[in-house]
């Protein structure tokens, strides 16, 4: 009997089937579960009401990220400063009480390792290739950068995983997204994923798991791959995968929660068997040429509303689909933009460098390289840099990046989700415009009435310098 060539996704899926039902539904084992304060309170409440215990606390890791203020957290004497919003404070306290009651490992709010779940997971070596990893957050797709089958779940599923360490799922279809060639100067992983989302659409990956393939991705660092995989959900795909390779193994080796010694060697052998077999087929394939990708920016309220920085705001009538036409017209209205406006003529008042998409050390280096010797434009009301974790912050400070940002006029903050969704005090005021390295430009995402333009860290820095959306390629040597 010959074995059919299998994709990376099929291999991970089949290795996690606990039980297969006649209708095709499978009970899938979950190896890793990240828990945060926003989507877990009702799950723990359900567990308590049913008298259930957390099945595998050792495979679970909790931390707070969404609600935490990014301003100073402890006073000069080292005492914890109170959280002003009582509802945020209650949600944070609820997580702390729940992890204590259920015995779940927890990284505390003032711990040096605290940060955004999707930054901390890989950084600690909690995320491993070939594992299934879930979190009550749609950007869980990020962990696919390390070859983990990772996806966002709702609170009912959080409870299901806490109680059973499994989920009831149906296999997804597979989509190959192949990018070949070398990226031009000033073009980053963020521009690549924005180009992909623009190409396949905000629902283009629905029902599919994406596998990112081709030499452009093979040449990327893990941090760049995290940026790409993170936004898979913005193309409608619940997961995005990269085949684990030497870059992955070098990144993981020696991280605090990664396996060691003989266990490392045993895992390594398994990880090397995971890449898709030659001849494996996908339900759908798309191909992009890296050389054709420019720095990208969004103009509307859906992440597929994307154009190169050299482009202009499109006219809704140029879209073939009537639904898209209507949505584009509403978008322009919300964004306060006229069709035909050159993207580089759009003035911004806020700059946000952060979020689970772009808050890692390489992102901060990329933005700092543009800011070095330059100033934030006087027309900018607020410019924030929010590192993704305490360890990223510490590393950036060791490299002097914080000084570059602060001298340029940025605020250097404590780690958290911050202005990506404004659950903490970091919000964009109504009607004002933000150049943001985050992942969503939805209406009201960064605060009620806020207008968001998504772009890369280097492009956010370029916007900070000029006070408008700008082409970073004109600012680099």
């Amino acid at each position, binding site marked *: 009997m010959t074995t059919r060539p299998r994709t990376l996704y099929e291999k991970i899926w089949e290795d996690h089937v606990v039980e297969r039902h006649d209708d095709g539904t499978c009970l899938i084992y979950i190896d890793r579960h990240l828990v945060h304060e926003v989507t877990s309170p009702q799950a723990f409440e359900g567990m308590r009401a049913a008298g259930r215990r957390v099945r595998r606390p050792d495979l679970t890791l909790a931390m707070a990220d969404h609600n935490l203020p990014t301003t100073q957290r402890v006073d000069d004497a080292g005492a914890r400063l109170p959280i002003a919003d009582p509802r945020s404070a*209650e949600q944070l306290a609820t997580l702390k009480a729940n992890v204590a009651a259920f015995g779940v490992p927890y990284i505390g709010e003032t711990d040096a390792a605290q940060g955004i779940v999707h930054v901390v997971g890989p950084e600690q070596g909690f995320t491993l290739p070939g594992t299934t990893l879930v979190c009550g957050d749609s950007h869980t797709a990020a962990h696919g950068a390390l070859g983990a089958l990772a996806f966002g779940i709702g609170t009912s599923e959080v409870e299901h995983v806490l109680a059973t360490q499994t989920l009831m799922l149906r296999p997804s279809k597979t989509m190959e997204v192949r990018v070949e060639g070398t990226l031009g100067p000033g073009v980053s992983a963020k521009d690549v994923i924005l180009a992909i989302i623009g190409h396949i659409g905000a629902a283009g990956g629905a029902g599919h798991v994406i596998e990112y393939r081709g030499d452009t991705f093979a040449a990327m660092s893990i941090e760049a791959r995290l940026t790409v995989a993170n936004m898979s959900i913005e193309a*409608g795909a619940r997961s995005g995968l990269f085949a684990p390779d030497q870059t992955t193994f070098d990144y993981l080796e020696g991280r605090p929660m990664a396996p060691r010694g003989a266990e490392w060697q045993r895992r390594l052998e398994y990880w090397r068997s995971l890449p898709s077999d030659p001849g494996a087929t996908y339900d759908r394939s798309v191909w992009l040429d890296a050389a054709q990708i420019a720095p990208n920016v969004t103009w509307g309220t859906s992440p597929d509303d994307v154009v190169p920085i050299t482009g202009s705001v499109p006219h809704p009538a140029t879209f073939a689909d009537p639904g898209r036409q209507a949505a584009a017209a509403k978008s322009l209205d919300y964004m306060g933009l006229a069709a035909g406006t050159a993207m580089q003529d759009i003035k911004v008042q806020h700059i946000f460098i952060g979020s689970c998409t772009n808050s890692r050390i390489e992102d901060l280096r990329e933005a700092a390289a543009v800011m070095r010797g330059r100033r934030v434009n006087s027309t900018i009301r607020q410019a924030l840099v929010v590192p993704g974790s305490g360890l990223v912050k510490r590393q950036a400070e060791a490299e002097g990046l914080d000084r570059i940002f602060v001298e340029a006029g940025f605020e250097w903050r404590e780690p958290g989700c911050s202005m990506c969704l404004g659950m903490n005090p970091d919000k964009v005021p109504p009607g004002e415009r933000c150049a943001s390295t985050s992942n969503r430009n939805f209406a009201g995402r960064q605060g009620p009435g806020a207008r968001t333009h998504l772009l890369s860290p280097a492009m956010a820095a370029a916007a900070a310098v000029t006070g408008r959306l700008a082409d970073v390629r004109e600012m680099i040597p």
Partner: protein
Amino acid sequence: MKPVTIIHGRAYPLGRDNIDTDLIIGAEHLKTVSRSGLGRFAFETLRSEPGNLFDDPVFARSPILIAGANFGCGSSREHAVWALIDLGVEAVIAPSFSDIFSANAYKNGVVTVALSAGKVARLMAFALTGKITIDLVAMTVSASGMQTTFMLDPFRRECLLRGLDEIALTLASEPVIRAYELRSGT
């Protein structure tokens, strides 16, 4: 969970593609530690637009919402489903749904009915004046002069019809889960 068989009544003719979960319930309202009371905050941004359906007494407590393609895209927040339930919505009809939203919906007994864009447009027009029936036993959507069938994942349909608690169902597989853990060394 309460079994679901028939949903009958008025429908909000919302339309519009890519209704994301931030639009359904804003981040500010995710600070709650309970599931109830979110209905009055649902669609806050849309309520400020002309022609707002959600405060129109004609549509108050409509059990059905009709929307455009890719409904529920974006964040995994189940609060979006809880807000719809609190608003009185028991089913959403749209050309397509995000994967996470449809999983969240069915786990709370909310039915997602995917129909062609053409059929959704006809129902939108019909919803301005008439009532709609969704029958989970016959797998049909009917309105005056129109009846169409729809598909649902068989496992999800069974759970909805019988009001099953999925966690209790899975816990019955405990020995199989334990065997998997031993086999895989997890």
